[in-house]
C-alpha cells in the first residue's frame, strides 16, 4: 500500500468536512474492498477517514412502514434482521448469496453498494484498463470476457458490478441517503445511482465529491414471493455469472433485476410489465440492445432459462 495519514471521525458531518478539506482522502468503513485495492495500488488514498465506528449502524422502521438501513450496518446484520427476513426477503437472500461469513461480518451496506468491479483486467495493473487508468484502453474486450458485461457497456469498458445486494436493492427501489460537506442531505434513487461506462468508465456513481452515504431507505414491504437466484461456477463463494432478483405477486406481475450482466444492476420497467407473458418476452425486452462478446453471449440464454425456472417456481 502507499502510505497514508489516518483519522478517526465522530460524526458524519465531521467525515464529510474532513474529506472536503483533504484532497486525496477516502472514507474507510469495513475496508474489505478498499484495502484489497490499496494492496494492489489500484486505490491510492493519501488520507483515510475511518467512519467505521460512527452510529450509522442502525436499522429502523419508520411510522409509514419504510425501513431505514444505516450505511454502516454489516451485511450479516442486514441479512439476519427479522424485518428484512420477513418483509424484504429478496435482500436477505441476495446478501447471503454473496462473499463469505467473514466478509459479510465486516462489509457494510454502503460499502457493498460502492464496491468496485472484479474484472481481472481492472485488477491486473499490467493490463490496459480505462477504468483504472483512463485512456489506456480495455484489454478485456478482446480478452477473457466470459464473466463480463453483455449490456450497457461501451468500447471503453465491459466491466460488471459484482454486488448481489445491489441487485436486490434495485428490485426493491431503494433510495440512497447522503450528506455533503455543507451539511445538505440528498436522496438518490438507486436507479439513478450507478453510471454506465460510456467514455468515462472511471466514473462509477452519481455521488458528488466528498458526499457520504448515511443510509439506504427501503419502501414499504412489497409483499409477494421473493427469489434471488445466482448462477455461478461454484455452489458458493464465487461471483455471479448472472443473477436474477425477482419479486413476484400473485397476479403474475412483479419486479425483476439482473446481476452479472452490466456495470450496474439491470432493471427495465417496461420489460417488467411483461412478466405475466413469461421469460422469453421479458428477457427480449430486458436485454434488448445487448452487445455481448463471443465469450459471454451465453449469458443472454442463461438469463431467459433462469427466469423461466423462477417463474415456474414462483407460480407453485
Amino acid at each position, binding site marked *: 500500500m502507499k*502510505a497514508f495519514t489516518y483519522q478517526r471521525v465522530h460524526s458524519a458531518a465531521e467525515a464529510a468536512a474532513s474529506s472536503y478539506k483533504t484532497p486525496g482522502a477516502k472514507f474507510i468503513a469495513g*475496508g474489505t474492498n478498499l*484495502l484489497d485495492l490499496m494492496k494492489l495500488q489500484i486505490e491510492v488514498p*493519501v488520507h483515510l477517514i475511518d467512519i467505521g465506528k460512527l452510529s450509522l449502524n442502525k436499522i429502523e422502521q419508520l411510522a409509514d412502514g419504510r425501513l431505514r438501513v444505516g450505511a454502516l450496518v454489516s451485511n450479516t446484520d442486514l441479512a439476519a434482521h427479522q424485518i428484512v*427476513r420477513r418483509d424484504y426477503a429478496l435482500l*436477505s437472500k441476495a446478501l447471503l448469496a454473496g462473499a*463469505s461469513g467473514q466478509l459479510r461480518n465486516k462489509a457494510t451496506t454502503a460499502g457493498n453498494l460502492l464496491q468496485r468491479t472484479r474484472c481481472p483486467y481492472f485488477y491486473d495493473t499490467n493490463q490496459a484498463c480505462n477504468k483504472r487508468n483512463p485512456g489506456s484502453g480495455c484489454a478485456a474486450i478482446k480478452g477473457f470476457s466470459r464473466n463480463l458485461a453483455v449490456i450497457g457497456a461501451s468500447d471503453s469498458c465491459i466491466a460488471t458490478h459484482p454486488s448481489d445486494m445491489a441487485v436486490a436493492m434495485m428490485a426493491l427501489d431503494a433510495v440512497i441517503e447522503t450528506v455533503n460537506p455543507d451539511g445538505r442531505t440528498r436522496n438518490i434513487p438507486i436507479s439513478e445511482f450507478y453510471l454506465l461506462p460510456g467514455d468515462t468508465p472511471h466514473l462509477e456513481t452519481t455521488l458528488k465529491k466528498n458526499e457520504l452515504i448515511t443510509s439506504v431507505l427501503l419502501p414499504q414491504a412489497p409483499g409477494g414471493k421473493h427469489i434471488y437466484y445466482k448462477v455461478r461456477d461454484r455452489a458458493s463463494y464465487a461471483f455471479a455469472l448472472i443473477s436474477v432478483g425477482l419479486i413476484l405477486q400473485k397476479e403474475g406481475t412483479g419486479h425483476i433485476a439482473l446481476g452479472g450482466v452490466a456495470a450496474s444492476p439491470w432493471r427495465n420497467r417496461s420489460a417488467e410489465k411483461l412478466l405475466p407473458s413469461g421469460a422469453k418476452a421479458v428477457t427480449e425486452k430486458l436485454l434488448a440492445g445487448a452487445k455481448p462478446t463471443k465469450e459471454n453471449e451465453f449469458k443472454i440464454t442463461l438469463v431467459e432459462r433462469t427466469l423461466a425456472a423462477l417463474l415456474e417456481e414462483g407460480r407453485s
Partner: protein
Amino acid sequence: MEESNNNITRREMIVGTAAAVTLSLALGNIEKVAGFTRAGTHKLSYENVSMTINGKKQSLKLDTRTTLLDTLREHLQLTGTKKGCDHGQCGACTVLVNGQRINSCLSLALQHEGDEITTIEGLGTQENLHPMQAAFVAHDGYQCGYCTPGQICSAVAVLKEIKAGIPSHVSQDLIRHPEISNMEIRERMSGNICRCGAYSNIAEAMAEIAEKQA
C-alpha cells in the same frame, strides 16, 4: 542572410529539446519516487492503537498501513494466524473480533481501537485444548495444518452464528431458526479453503461439537 534574435540555431534547438525531455523525465520519476499523486503526497505515518488480544491489553505504535494480520504475526509474534492470500479470499487469516470472525488481512490494526481480538492462540493451548481443537485432532481435520487455525476460528464462530439464528444461503426457511446440518456447515465454512482437502473431516469435527453443544 541576416540573423535576427528570434532565430534559434540548430545547436540551441538540440540542447533545448534535450533539456525539456530530461526535465519531464525527471518530473515523471519524482512522481514515482517521492510518491506524489495528483491529489497529494503519500506521507509515511505512525499512529497509536490499543486493543485486547487474547485477554491481554496491547498498545502499539504502527505504520498506518499495518493490517491486523501483520500486527498479530510480525509485531506480536502470534504466528498461529496465517497469511494465505492476503486478499480476503482464503480465510487462513480468520480471527475473532468482539466474538465475530473476520479476515484479518483485510483490516487495518487502526480500525480496531478498543476491540477484543481472539486468535487461535487464545482459543486453547496444548495443555488445555479448546473442544473444537480436540475435535479437529480426533477427526483428522487437517493435513499440512496451514489453513487450520483459520478453520478452527471460523468453525467456532459458525456454531455461534447458527446459535444466534443467523440464516445462510442454504437455509430452507429464512424466518425459522437455522438448523445444524452438513449443508449448513459446508456453506458457512465456504470462506475457508483447504488445499489438502480436509473438508469432510472438518465438517465432522464441527458436527461433533455442535451435537455436544446442543
